[in-house]
């Protein structure tokens, strides 16, 4: 996208809309009487979302302020869970500021402009789009894993059935639950209003007559154990500041793997004993640049985490038959799959005993 295009209010209809009539200066500051660009831009606020939406959208603004997108509380709690100190002024507080803030999602980054990850720019004129763009908003931030899986961008691995069969956009399943519930939450799997497969496939539980696998396993295996395929796993992320003073990060090349393990988030909402697990980029030394031993309790949480890969298929290698899965060592996360230095962290999620073959 050209630089000028990013700031081009191409649709004059915007000026007549509810938002346009508010007037540029009310939202963005600056001086609308100055002819000179620099002078007109004195005091400019590039992203006015933080203050200017709540006058008219109080309800959304209030819950958004506590949502994962608004707070990035998920990043903070992930560091804290390993014993990290994120209090103000601590080394990890600096890490959050330098390396995580860019994903802070304002109203405008879903409804008006492309996020910082794509270096900004209006999505369509200056339209306030009720429905965010899958490509320019959601996938701009969620591209590496979810987006690539959903759209079939990983070599040799098919796109999600909801994309190939129905061209469903992210917003076909994810909607206003993204504004948050009004409560601060711990992780991406704690949003109480999150979409569920069963919201649309209501009858999988009741109509199991022709589906012996559903009949046997709906309550102890998550849907993805049978319906997703190999997904991206990342290792060895290190964050630092480069020679020019800019935040940077390095990580090992990602690996496509499929691993079934024990459910680290077992609860009444997620009763499954088995789920698929994704290796997260974090390692003990991820933040070493900022200080020694910043995770005194690194092993408190696994590095293979609860996952819901967005590459759902009707038929998968593991659901071809009962014994495609039973006794198939390849599919399960076992002791041998774990790096030596991570064995302690993952002791609760590795499978110690495979289901025996059933001859079907």
């Amino acid at each position, binding site marked *: 996208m050209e*630089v000028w295009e*990013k700031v*081009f209010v191409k649709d004059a209809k915007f*000026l007549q809309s509810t938002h346009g009539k508010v007037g540029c200066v009310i939202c963005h500051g600056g001086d609308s*009487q100055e002819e000179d*660009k620099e002078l*007109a831009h004195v005091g400019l606020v590039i992203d006015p979302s933080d203050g200017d939406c709540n006058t008219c959208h109080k309800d959304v603004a209030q819950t958004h302020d506590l949502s994962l997108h608004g707070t990035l509380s998920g990043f903070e709690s992930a560091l804290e869970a390993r014993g990290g100190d994120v209090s103000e002024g601590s080394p990890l507080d600096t890490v959050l500021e330098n390396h995580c803030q860019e994903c802070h999602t304002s109203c405008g980054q879903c409804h008006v402009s492309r996020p910082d990850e794509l270096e900004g720019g209006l999505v369509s004129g200056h339209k306030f789009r009720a429905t965010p763009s899958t490509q320019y908003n959601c996938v701009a931030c969620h591209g590496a894993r979810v987006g690539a899986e959903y759209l079939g961008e990983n070599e040799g691995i098919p796109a999600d059935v909801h994309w190939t069969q129905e061209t469903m956009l992210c917003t076909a399943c994810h909607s206003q639950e993204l504004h948050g519930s009004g409560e601060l939450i711990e992780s991406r799997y704690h949003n109480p209003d999150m979409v569920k497969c069963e919201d649309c496939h209501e009858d999988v539980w009741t109509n199991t007559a022709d589906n012996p696998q559903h009949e046997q396993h709906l309550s102890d295996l998550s849907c993805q154990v049978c319906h997703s395929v190999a997904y991206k796993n990342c290792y060895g992320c290190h964050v630092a500041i480069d020679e020019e003073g800019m*935040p940077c990060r390095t*990580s090992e*090349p990602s690996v496509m793997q499929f691993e079934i393990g024990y459910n680290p988030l077992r609860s009444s909402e997620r009763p499954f004993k088995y789920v698929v697990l994704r290796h997260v980029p974090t390692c003990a030394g991820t933040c070493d640049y900022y200080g020694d031993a910043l995770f005194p309790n690194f092993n408190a949480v696994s590095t293979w985490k609860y996952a819901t890969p967005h590459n759902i298929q009707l038929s998968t290698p593991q659901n071809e038959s009962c014994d495609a899965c039973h006794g198939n060592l390849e599919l399960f996360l076992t002791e041998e799959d774990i790096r030596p230095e991570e064995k302690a962290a993952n002791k609760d999620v590795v499978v110690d005993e495979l289901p025996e073959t059933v001859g079907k």
Partner: protein
Amino acid sequence: MKRLVTAVTVILVLVALAATGCTNKGLISPAPEAEEEEITSTCVTCHTDKDTLKELATTEVAAKSEATTGEG
């Protein structure tokens, strides 16, 4: 008679003015200031003009570090 003619004329003119909404303009039209300000806003003039923007837009400094490798 002359007075009556004058009075009728004045009344007719007033009625005509009232009917066209002229006399009331200041009272009922919605906040003209806001609209006028928008029309003369240099923000609008500039940000809706492709050529001006092409001329004035400056290439931003690279927002990302070259030292970054691998996926986020």
